[in-house]
């Protein structure tokens, strides 16, 4: 089992090594990186490449570690008890399995995605230490210990909103998805738009990297925004000539709404473009 990227996903050498290390040594892989560089997609692609089932656990600010293990539906049991239902005698009927349990029960070795772990409370990662280490946990209500049949491949993503505790980090491998350089970006675009016009792509990439260089942008456009923008450019059949930023009349790239997501950024960019144009006119 070696992960080498898939048809739809370009994995750089360092990413491949990180994934393979965590698959072979059975350690969770913590993935960080700018938004839109394909952190969540990675888990999907690993599952696809290795032919493993994918179990996704999306973390929210209210998520507790316990939710991943199991929940005890006390209200249902109370209701059944008051209605005199026979089910009430077996407490196991009211144990609702969480994502982690699901992953532990899987017939084949699954990929478990714990998405945006930093959204949860600060204590969340600490509460999962033992479970991720030993891949087992205890259900107090039924006095049963759930042990993983196959240690799942665990992919954890974080957007850095909270710092993760050291003890947790020590148990993970870590990979930071750097923003792709121009070569990698061309490969990524090739994968998504195999028959895009070469010239359009070159102009679009130039415009895109120029835009990322603009100082003071609140949210720099990332890979996913670029792909959206290209989709629009192809759909609208934009002439590559129009992307040339050295035409003073058209300094803002067409359909820029796909690239700039905040009102302030658009204004900033327009202002810079205006100043730029005035400077050119002055020369």
């Amino acid at each position: 089992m070696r992960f080498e990227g898939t048809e739809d996903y370009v994995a750089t050498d360092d990413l491949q090594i990180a994934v393979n290390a965590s698959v072979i040594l059975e350690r969770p892989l913590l993935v960080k990186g700018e938004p839109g560089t394909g952190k969540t997609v990675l888990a999907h692609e690993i599952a696809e490449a290795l032919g493993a089932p994918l179990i996704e656990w999306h973390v929210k600010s209210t998520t507790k570690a316990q939710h991943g293990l199991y929940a005890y539906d006390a209200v249902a049991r109370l209701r059944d008890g008051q209605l005199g239902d026979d089910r009430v005698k077996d407490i196991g009927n009211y144990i609702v399995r969480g994502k982690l349990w699901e992953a532990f029960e899987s017939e084949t070795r699954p990929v478990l995605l714990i998405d945006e772990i930093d959204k949860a409370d600060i204590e969340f990662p600490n509460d999962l230490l033992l479970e991720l280490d030993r891949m087992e946990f205890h259900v107090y209500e039924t006095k049963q210990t759930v042990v993983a049949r196959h240690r799942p491949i665990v992919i954890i993503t974080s957007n850095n909103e909270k710092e993760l505790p050291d003890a947790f980090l020590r148990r993970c491998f870590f990979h930071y998805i750097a923003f792709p350089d121009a070569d990698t970006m061309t490969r990524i675009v090739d994968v998504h738009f195999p028959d895009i016009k070469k010239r359009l792509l070159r102009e679009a990439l130039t415009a895109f990297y120029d835009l990322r260089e603009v100082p003071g942008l609140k949210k720099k456009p990332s890979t996913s925004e670029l792909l959206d923008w290209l989709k629009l450019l192809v759909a609208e059949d934009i002439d590559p000539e129009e992307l040339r930023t050295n035409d003073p009349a058209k300094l803002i790239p067409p359909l820029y709404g796909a690239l700039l997501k905040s009102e302030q950024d658009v204004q900033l960019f327009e202002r810079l473009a205006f100043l730029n144009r005035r400077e050119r006119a002055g020369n």
Partner: protein
Amino acid sequence: MFAELFYTLRKAEVPVSLREYLDLMAAMDRGLAEYDVEEFYYLARTILVKDERHIDKFDQVFGHVFRGLEPPEFEDGTAEIPEEWLRKMGELDLTDEEKAQIEAMGGWDKLMETLRERLAEQDGRHQGGKKWIGTQGTSPYGANGYNPEGVRIGQDGNRNFSAVKVWDRREFKDLDGDTEIGTRNIKVALRRLRKFAREGAAEELDLDDTISSTAKNGGWLDVRMVPERRNAAKVLLLFDVGGSMDPHIRMCEELFSAARTEFKHLEYFYFHNCVYESLWRENRRRRAGGTPTWDVLHTYPADYKLILVGDATMSPYEIAHPGGSVEHWNEESGETWLRRLVRTYPQVAWLNPMPQDRWRYFPTIGMVSEIVEGRMYPLTVEGLDDAMRGLSR
């Protein structure tokens, strides 16, 4: 050799423990990186480094420790490079055009002579820059195949694209903790101050308590409520405005906007250079006088955490003497007022946007730092982190 990497990393304050080291050994044992330094570099990085802030440090240490693993390049200042061999290789590799460029620089001999001089001058390994020999930068000497006049030293031709090694590119420099600061980084740092507490009206269902009290109640439902959990940290933020603070406005704006979203209980005031008998809420009202500092001291209780933001660079008189203020006649010295603040609010941090290595040139920074009992921190991600840690103690 691996042990050396491990200990040098620890020395460089990259947090690595025995566990990571054993993991790396296990990975090597399973044959994850064989016979390829680049693969080994990626593997070691993924296992040993747990935070993108440390990647840059890791790159530097890796470059330092594994210098000898690659074909010898420029071991250190005293390395002998067989000139004949270099000359031969250079002639093989260079196009006529490039040779012409060498001529333009004073000819091959001149190039070699300068190279020798620099080698002799150079002390230890060097990365980046424009003059010294190293990998990166625009010096014509060193293993950088992109430079038209660059001499590739000790590289065999098949790897010319990676004359600059991956770790030597130092692509993660920007992510190092002490460099840049942005709203997002600030927010992450400010979150250290979070102190969740249940306060106010009971609005949430407390399921566990409801169950246990229902059980105690003989099965009759007894609903229990608890107040919602909120961030209960209270912060009093005082900003220095105007004058010498102008270059730092953007950073302060970011700090302010981050603090606004992060704390529910945030009070802020402005001052100029040093705190005196009045503070103000809106910058344009400063001439008209603002809130008396006594009122501020009396309004906000001692459990507020006080954060002062200012460069603390001014004339020593502005701190030490009554009447020293540049804007008005102050009855009591700035020092008196600062000490009053520190006495009222035991949890104090002074954030200074001035780079820390320049602090020693300004005597007033030392004075202020002494007044706040050494709790002055640079306004960098790391400094902010330390400040928040100090405040939550």
